[in-house]
């Protein structure tokens, strides 16, 4: 074992990754937070302290947009938690059933939407839900529910929920796969022991499997949280940067994009954009901390 010499090879192995990562990810992250403390006055960059944040939270024009975007974002997240993750868990529970035929086929097919880009997903659903084309209304008609049809993406009260459900449709494959993996790792003896005690079928799922996969559900929740709070692409692809109708689908990602890049007559403002990015960073950080310190450490892990 070599000890005293400087081991240059360690530096050589680490350098490229650390350099790229620091220069393109960590440094811009902090630089963005720094930029949020500046403003452009007379073509010059001036330090203004927390004034941008004051504008963001205090100025009614800004704060209204911000709280709207944040509220929408929470609704977006809530729908993912209430619809995507339970469906994912249910599909995984069925798929992990021993000796189920065609399991691999179902699994691959259900995962297909996850690999498609937001652009494809956004437009495909826009076309399908479009009242002009009429696929959705005629399908509802076939089951006698035509009266339920509305141009969902065009109505303020439905648009956000519709987009969230489209996003659920797209990403249900991820919780499904992760839970599936967790379920497969439960040893057969544990289930057999339960069977001897008369715990089978559904109650085996609720009483034995579910407690054992709780850590995976925790991971899925935090992944969903982080993913949702920097979402942008689907809303932009389906509704554009204005997140219509009447900003009803605006979330933090689209709000930041509009502020930072400008749209129509409003000029882009990188400093306000940075302030919004700072707020997003804080929200994600709080979420991750709650998960790491509040949930993950308290969750009981079973030694299998």
């Amino acid at each position, binding site marked *: 074992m070599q000890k005293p010499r400087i*081991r240059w090879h*360690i530096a050589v*192995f*680490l350098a*490229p*990754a*650390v350099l*790229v*990562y620091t220069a*393109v*990810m*960590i440094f*811009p*992250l902090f*630089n*963005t937070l720094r*930029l949020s403390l500046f403003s452009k006055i007379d073509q010059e960059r001036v330090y203004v302290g927390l004034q941008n944040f004051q504008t963001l939270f205090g100025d009614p024009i800004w704060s209204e947009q911000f709280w709207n975007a944040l509220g929408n974002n929470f609704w977006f997240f809530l729908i993912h938690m209430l619809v995507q993750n339970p*469906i994912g868990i249910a599909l995984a529970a*069925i798929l992990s059933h*021993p*000796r189920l035929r065609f399991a691999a086929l*179902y699994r*691959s097919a259900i*995962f*297909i*939407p*996850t*690999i*498609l*880009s*937001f*652009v*494809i997903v956004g437009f495909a*659903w826009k*076309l399908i839900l479009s009242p002009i*084309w009429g*696929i959705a209304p005629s399908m509802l008609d076939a089951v006698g529910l035509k009266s339920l049809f509305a141009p969902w993406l065009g109505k303020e009260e439905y648009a956000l929920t519709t987009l969230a459900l489209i996003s659920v449709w797209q990403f*249900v494959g991820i919780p499904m*796969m*992760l839970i599936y*993996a967790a379920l*497969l790792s439960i040893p057969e003896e544990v289930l057999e022991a339960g069977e001897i005690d008369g715990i*089978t*079928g559904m109650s085996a799922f609720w009483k034995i499997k579910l407690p054992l996969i709780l850590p995976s559900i925790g*991971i899925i929740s*935090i992944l969903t949280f*982080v993913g949702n709070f920097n979402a*942008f*692409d689907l809303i932009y*692809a389906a509704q554009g940067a204005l997140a219509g109708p009447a900003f009803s689908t605006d979330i933090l*990602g689209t709000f*930041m*994009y509009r502020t*930072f890049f400008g749209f129509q007559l409003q000029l882009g403002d*990188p400093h306000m954009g940075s302030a919004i*990015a700072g707020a997003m*960073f804080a929200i*994600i*950080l709080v979420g*991750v901390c709650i998960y790491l310190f509040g949930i993950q450490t308290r969750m009981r892990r079973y030694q299998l």
Partner: protein
Amino acid sequence: MNQARTNPLNTAAMHGALILYTLIALFPVFVILINSFKTRKAIFREPLAMPDADSFSMIGYQTVMKQGDFFLYFQNSMIVTVASLFFVLLFGAMAAFALSEYRFKGNTLMGLYLALGIMIPIRIGTVAILEMMVATGLVNSLWALILVYTAQGLPLAVFILSEFMRQVSDDLKNAGRIDGLSEYTIFFKLVLPLVRPAMATVAVFNMIPIWNDLWFPLILAPAEETKTLTLGSQVFIGQFVTDWNAVLSALSMAILPVLVLYVIFSRQLIRGITSGAVK
């Protein structure tokens, strides 16, 4: 064995639920694909019918070929994805090797530092990234995208690969050292081939988000000659909203490459996820 857990009625119910969900998952893709081969009239009259001799038409694809530069977009996406994956794997494996193989001061700290990026999305830093790319003249070049995706992919790559590298036997590496191999040779000749399955997993995980990303192409490389397929189809569809044939064909052309990649790599991807690589 397991008599209690198999009951024909249950099995039927399970297949029913899975078939129903599979239909929900595939239906939109199917509708887009079949209608891209139909005439405008047929698209509207019978959206759910398969194209037949009467309704078959390639007019949409012709418009797409004439108006949009989809081969260029495809090529750009290909270059960006392959180059980013190459750098993520090379740099990630090197760093993972350093972290898992050697004991040195600050090892744990370096590991934590590199892991930070797993949870914090790189998009938060977009404003400063754009400024930096403008300052270095990389804006509207594929290099800007490659750098960003490399940085974005590294944290998870280092994390997964170092887990796997810890499992490579020490005896093998020490045997190499006794034979006088340099640390670099040990890494490239002995360790890398052994972690190839893990590298494939990392590659597949990174491939889809890079290929599908809209945010960074839109902000860092929106010029015509650097558009990726995702951005290119977004812009094209935005311009041809009323030309349904063209929109459906453009969508189908964007679906096809990903679908082909998926068919090739799906076993790798699913094995990667289910082997617990992301625990």
